[in-house]
């Protein structure tokens, strides 16, 4: 792919990408601090025994390790933002091809409902330029990744964001056509490109 559609795309740095807000906890200022901090403020080991039920309310204990959190837009974004662009060795998140506000889950994750109820994930993809010939591949990549990473009760829809591509109707039609998607995945060349794109997904 020597003739790139967009040879010079705008790239966001890692710090500009949306991330989950990590709960505020005491973080030592340096590695040097950590060496001592562990000895000073750790909960005494004799109180950490599995059979010890004494509470230690200093907020440093990670009791929330197994806290229940529904799949939310940020998680969907995290799943797809590290897919590599087929043209550049840069992630879709950094190229702003996928954006957090363009991920939508219905019914919203905040509403409590049966865990096995059907949910729909809609991702709007923004190609870097309006005539991008790889828009379908991008959409397909996002779709494959989500289908591989979400449970069976999630329906995935990938569309091109309105007005971001000159032929968005056609591309959307291709992406929504299950048979064409299945046929595309049978194609070895296309499969190779997709595998390469998904290599960076953890």
């Amino acid at each position, binding site marked *: 792919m020597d003739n790139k559609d967009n040879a010079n795309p705008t790239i966001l740095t890692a710090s500009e990408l949306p991330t989950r807000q990590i709960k505020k906890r*005491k973080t030592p*200022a*340096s590695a*040097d*601090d950590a060496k*001592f*901090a562990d*000895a*000073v*403020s750790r909960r*005494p*080991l*004799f*109180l950490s*025994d*599995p*059979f*010890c*039920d*004494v*509470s*230690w*309310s*200093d*907020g440093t204990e990670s*009791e929330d*390790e*197994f*806290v*229940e*959190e*529904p*799949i939310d837009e940020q*998680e969907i974004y995290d*799943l797809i933002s590290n897919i590599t662009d087929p043209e550049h060795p840069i992630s879709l998140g950094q190229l702003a091809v996928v954006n957090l506000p363009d991920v939508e889950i219905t019914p919203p994750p905040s509403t409590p409902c049966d*865990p096995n109820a059907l949910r729909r994930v809609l991702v709007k993809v923004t190609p870097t330029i309006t005539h991008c010939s790889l828009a379908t591949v991008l959409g397909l990549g996002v779709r494959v990744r989500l289908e*591989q*990473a*979400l*449970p*069976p*009760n*999630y329906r995935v829809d990938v569309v091109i964001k309105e007005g971001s591509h000159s032929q968005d109707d056609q591309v959307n039609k291709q992406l929504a056509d299950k048979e064409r998607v299945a046929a595309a995945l049978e194609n070895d060349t296309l499969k190779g490109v997709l595998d390469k794109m998904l290599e960076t997904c*953890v």
Partner: protein
Amino acid sequence: MASFDDLALKYVLSDGDDNDSPLQAATAIENAANRLAVGQWVASINRWMTSPDDTADDDLISRAKALEFLARTLEFLKRTSLKPDQVKLLVGFFNSLFSSDHRAGISASSRALKQLASMEGFRPSLGSEVMMSVAKLGDDFKRQAPATRLEIYDLVLGLLNNSLVAEDLAYQHGSSCGFMTALVDVCRSERDPQNLMKWFEILRLFLQNFSPAKEVLSEVFKAFSDYFPITLRASVTPSGITVDDLKGAVRACFASHYRIAELAIPFLLNKLDQGDAVTVTIKVDILLTLEACLAQYEHVAQGVVPYANQIWASLKYEVRNGEIRDTIDATLKAIATLAKRLPEPDLRTFFSAAWRDLGEDLSNATYTSQAGQLITSIAAASPTSFSLVAETAMPHITTTLRQTKSESHQADILALLNSLLQVRSALADVAGENENLKDDLFGDQLFEDGYARTWDSGAGPHVLAKAMDGMASLASQRTSGPNPQLICSQQVCEKIFRWLALPSIIYPLEGKILVQNASEEDSLAICNAATTALVRAVPLYPPGFQQLVFAFLSSIPELLENKQADSADKSTLLNEVALRLARIGCSATVRLGPPLLNFVVLINGLLQGLHSLLKESPVYWIAILDAIHMAILRSTDTLAVLLTSKEAIPIPGDKANNDQQWITGIEKHIRGLARIDLDQLGDLDLTLRNLEDLERDAGSSYKQFQGYSIHVVAQLYRRFTSIRPASSDSPLMDASVDKVIGLSTDFRLESHDEVQQQDRFLYQLARMATSVMRSLSESAQQELDLVLETSVMFHGKDDESGRAEFRSQVSRSFQTDSHGNRMMFSAADDYRTVPLGLGILQGLWPGTLMTINPLWTMMPLCEILMKSPTQCAGSRRIALDAALAILSNKSSDKHISAEEWSSVLNGLADGYAQVTRGAATDSPDVPTRLAIFKSILHFLAGDVARYRPTRAHNWLLRIICDTAPSEITIGRQLAQCFGILVSPKECLTKPNHAHLKPFRGQWIYQETVRPYFDRCLPSPPSGTDQSGQDDRCATNRSVAIFAILRHLKYNEYSSDADQIVRVVIRSLATFGVSDDIHAVMTVLCQVLEHEPERLKEHLAALVTNTMAVYKMARNVDSSLLISQGPGKTTTTRSDAGKCRHSALTFMRQLPGCFEPRYLLPHRVSVLQGLSLACGDPVRGVRALAISGRKAWSNLS
């Protein structure tokens, strides 16, 4: 004795290396009475030498072998064995082979000649002959095998290294050096790495030791420069030589002598200027070679000076337009070396030429940073170059800083200024008294013109960070010359510290920020920059640190008054700032002054802070106490580093350490220290004066600080405990003592939360005591009578408040009654002071505990713990359990007799009888039974860590292992507790001087796990086992086994892995959703990690059962809590989450451990399960499911 002919024949016919024949020949020659022997020896190979023109391969091989016989014989000959004429004849013979026998003779001849050249009879003039005959090889040289060529190089190298031969060569050949030109012709196309190393060595030696004519010089230069830049192709048979070795050898040739400077430097610069054609590695090689030349050419006027401008013209672009860090670093190194080598007038000329470029670049924002790097590298070369650079550059730098509007330009200029200040400090340390480092340019004026202006200009965070870094360097600048003084005035230094304290100490406490509208990250960055700057400046300007501590203390009231934040947030803030202060003050010792100065100032200040907060919530106490602990640890660490670098660290166990004066009475030496137990805040001025008088060597400082730490711990113990008359709710500790230790009046009983925080404070204090006490030697611990302190909490020791009476009462009771010295844990205040006693006990050496009567310490303890209904619960009980574990671990056999030990065990056995009393009406309730059982296990945990193999000793352990899991009502809960035997415990660790035997894991496994495998599976009654094993007992037994195994290392139980795997499979199906499953999965993952082979046969069962466990745990989540019989064990969401996590961890690891063919049969069902697991309610588990799904779907 065999004749030479026979020996030669034997050698020629031998297959491998025959050392025997040459050795015999050498002995024969040495023992021979006449000179004929040498002739006979040479003649012995005649039969193979007759037809040198014959080309038959067999003849060639035998001829080579025959010649080798001669060469090997020479190796065994003494250096004095041959007469000069014999040597000459032999040299002639072997020389002739270079022209006559190129196929068979070269290797042996080279070897022989090398030996001959080392003989005493070797005349130096023969060297030239050898050299010339080697040259006769001509084109046949390259046809020789690499090993043969290596022999030749060794021969030549040997000759050149021989100074007499070298002198003769120089004399005979003059400046034309004919032998070398001939050699260069012959060896021109060498490619073998090993040979090249030798060849370059030859060329280097030649260049260093001979004075060749220009033509020869250029010929030789060409011989090695043709290889530059050298690379090495990967080879199937690596020679052991790396590309760096080769680069080094070529570099040594370039740098060998200034005579080749006129060839080498233009050559290198020319290569460098080829532009894009040169890769980074090559560029770095060129630059490093150039640097080596500049550093090593002896005659600076001829080798360096003429090329200075040329070098500058080429190299400046490497930095100015450079992008690759390695290239830039190498260039800066070369320029620094150049500046270092140039003498004064030439340096001035060089810098004024360079400044024309640099001055211009400084004013241009695009190139400022690069110009700054170049200026710094020149300035750092020597004090002379620094003063030259400073004189020219400083006015320009300050003007540019004033004029520029761009923030990045400002930041770059400040970075340059900071580098120059750091360079100046470094040079000031090494410069002689007569060096001038331009003091006047780095004083108050620079502060006003540079930093103060930037600070006031409302610059952004990035610029501010640079300015703070620079101000810290500026405050610590000292004058050059004799008696260095601070350059900046006191007012300026104070101002600098006040400014640096704002973002790091004062504003965080007062809830303000330095730069309005700055983001949280920016504020944090400014704060970190200020802290880093202070860490550097404080050791050099101690008054600044006192200012910081004062600022900290005076900001605390502001923090408390803040109505917007709750006390948890405020205490976190207080803790952060106090820890920061500890980092600033304790990372290094004071440079010129008492080493302890800053440490004492800080801890004293923190104690004052703690005192002022005593009316507030305990969360604030904890915040300050943490910082005191951190300060003690950091300071000890800093002092220990000094110790290791200057003298041997005192071994903590050293009994001969008599220097206890610091440890027992620091207050006599340092007066005016804070004593918050007496509500005295101390007199800092007096303390500072006293510190000035203390010895300052590393060893004394270390001990002084240990003494100070004990003083701090002791006063905190006294402050937070009190002595009061015994009453009904606080029973006597001992019949002969009428008072007890309880908590002090600082502890107010308010809300449950408050009490919890108070307890946390007590634990932290105990932890600090452990840190301090364990660092003492055994003799110091005994001197301090720490055993007594566990009972009296330092009361009555160096205080004048009349509390001494209690101390002496306790001490007297120990001495007078028959039970001797012991420990007493006070029951007052619901045993809340117990953790404090544990804090001291935990850090004691077993030797220190020898002074107590273990029986009369353990018995009362067991009595408290075995009592039903229990009086002591929760965390205090666990502290008592830990104390019991320590006592059982550290009491030595010499110290407690078998009978005494048995009586302790009997006491515990009685307690165990209560546990197993089952459904009897008077049996204690379940929580009490479990608590008693855990206490017994703690005692055993201490004991088994230093196991004794006698059966008589371990009967209690055996009874418990045999019976506890089969107990009818609470067997499962008891089984779960078995982990206590081996779980990691702070009190049983090496730093706390526990007695840990290396094979304890194996021993425990043999005793508590191995004998019980057959009881892990249900069985009908049989001959040996009348009752058989029912399902419940088998399950409980498995729970006990996994509770232990999860804490053991794999190699400790690997021999029985097969049996364990069988129990695992049953347990997965029977344990239900609980923490026990987590233990099983931990063990299973260990097996998978170390010996996956063992699981191969069971894959189907393991996969099915693990996925079933996952499914069950997932369902639990929906239906929430499931009760599991009596006691506490209810499965919580968190337990279920843990189960799912460990199940998926195992599934995730499988594809990496087995070939796909073993897993493919399960792929579809596993993928189905994993796809459902992708919807797990816990995010971490979902992530595992996704990566597992990927791994399983890739199987094919």
